[in-house]
């Protein structure tokens, strides 16, 4: 088992979460105002002294790249979560062959780098498919592109990490609640749909948010298999203009903004879910 610890500790260390957001009032302290002024001066120097003349020309492509990045993020997170629920459930209640299969899948995916999985799918499967009958099937126009491989790799990776989280969440739902539901005569499916799944998601929510931020941080890898996301657009800028730093700084800023928006959205969602005693 790769899982030596509840993953939420590490998730929090690697991804920013709603509780890390500063409050508006926290900026009005004397030393923070000075620091903000210094930061503003730094930003001004970057804007004034560095080269930004390439920016207007590439702006439409950057917008397109951001849309691709976000599409990658949301599609793979949703697909990955849908896979993670059975993966987690099977590890808690399933028969042992399924249990072993699911935990083996999670161990293998979590034990190898995402970049390697991505290249295995793209170059490996991509080199096999043309030799098989798939070339004549209706899927071929899609499999010739690179994005399905990116979506597949990111989905699998998200499902494995999230499956581990859901396993803990399913196991952590108090047995009394499930017994109460059974005593009410709920069928297994009703119990799962009404009690077990909602309670597990509720417990896993903070970690889910963190994993989604980590998924955003993983999306630029798809640029290495020629998907044109925002990272790939910036790489193109760097190739075309021979400017090293400015595009990368802009890219870091874009990702910080995307992460920030994501985290604020999660805070909004978390506040809407009622918690007892809070």
């Amino acid at each position, binding site marked *: 088992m*790769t899982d030596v610890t509840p993953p939420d*500790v*590490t998730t929090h260390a690697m991804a920013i979460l709603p509780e890390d957001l500063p409050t508006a009032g926290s900026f009005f302290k004397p030393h923070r105002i000075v620091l903000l002024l210094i930061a503003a001066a730094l930003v001004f120097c970057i804007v004034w002294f560095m080269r930004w003349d390439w920016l207007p020309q590439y702006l439409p492509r950057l917008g397109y790249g951001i849309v691709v990045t976000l599409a990658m993020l949301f599609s793979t997170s949703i697909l990955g979560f849908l896979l993670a629920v059975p993966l987690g459930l099977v590890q808690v209640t399933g028969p042992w062959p399924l249990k072993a299969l699911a935990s083996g899948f999670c161990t*293998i995916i979590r034990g190898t*780098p995402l970049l*390697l999985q991505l290249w*295995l799918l793209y170059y490996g499967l991509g080199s096999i498919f043309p*030799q098989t009958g798939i070339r004549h099937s209706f899927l071929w126009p899609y499999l010739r592109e690179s994005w399905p491989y990116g979506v597949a790799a990111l989905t699998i990776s998200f499902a494995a990490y999230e499956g581990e989280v859901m396993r803990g969440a399913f196991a952590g739902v108090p047995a009394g609640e499930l017994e109460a539901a059974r005593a009410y005569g709920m069928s297994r499916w009703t119990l799962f749909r009404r009690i077990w799944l909602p309670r597990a998601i509720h417990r896993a929510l903070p970690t889910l948010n963190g994993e989604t931020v980590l998924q955003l941080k993983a999306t630029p890898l798809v640029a*290495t298999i020629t998907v044109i996301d925002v990272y790939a657009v910036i790489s193109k800028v760097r190739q075309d203009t021979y400017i*090293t730093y400015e595009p990368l700084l802009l890219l870091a800023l874009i990702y910080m903004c995307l992460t920030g928006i994501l985290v604020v959205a999660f805070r909004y969602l978390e506040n809407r879910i009622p918690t007892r005693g809070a």
Partner: protein
Amino acid sequence: MAADTIINWGLLALEPPGWGGVLLRGLLNSIQIAIGGYAFGLLLGVGGAFGKLYGGPILRDLMECYTTIVRAVPELVLILLLYYAGTDALNHVLNLVGIGTVDISGLAAGIFVIGVVQGAYSTEVLRGAIKAVPAGQIEAARAYGMSPFKVMTRVTLPAMLPYAIPGLSNLWLIATKDTALLAVVGFSELTLVTRQAAGATKAYILFFCAAGALYLALTLVSNVFIKIIERHSRRGFVEQS
């Protein structure tokens, strides 16, 4: 068709017609970077955690900026920025001092880059662990008249270790996998040499699976050691049911 499906294991031979030796050298490079980066990250993390908990308001805010940026920007982007900016800045400084430019080895740059990223993560892990140490223990050490440094080495660090080890061991596993990202800047670690081997022989599936097995073996072997260290560090704790 048949010739492609039969696996040509000879490609993995250690001697030059096979690529096994190249893969193992790549693995060795990856491990070196992971160990170096992890150690450097731990140093940064200890400094960062103490700065965040006990530093002045300005130091605390600067540390917050560091961890926030690393936690919000993809590792790949950070690695590119640090790889180019780090080597450039070092050469600038050396030029100013008058030594002239040096060629920074990929190994040193890789360790630096992975270390900076790991430093932010371990800052957060260690900060949480230090906060879990009962305040009375640290106060007692102070009451004995220990200097802040002695409090750190004798009480805070040993006492927080059981709380930190689960997070730190996860960070080690992440460090081994993050080394793969250095393939993008052209450092010949395991993932990049695998791609080169696969490209040269067209046996993509074989080589990527072989590399995956090597990474997995690294993770599983690490897990064995982690279990031992964890059991050792938790001795004297009440077993959780």
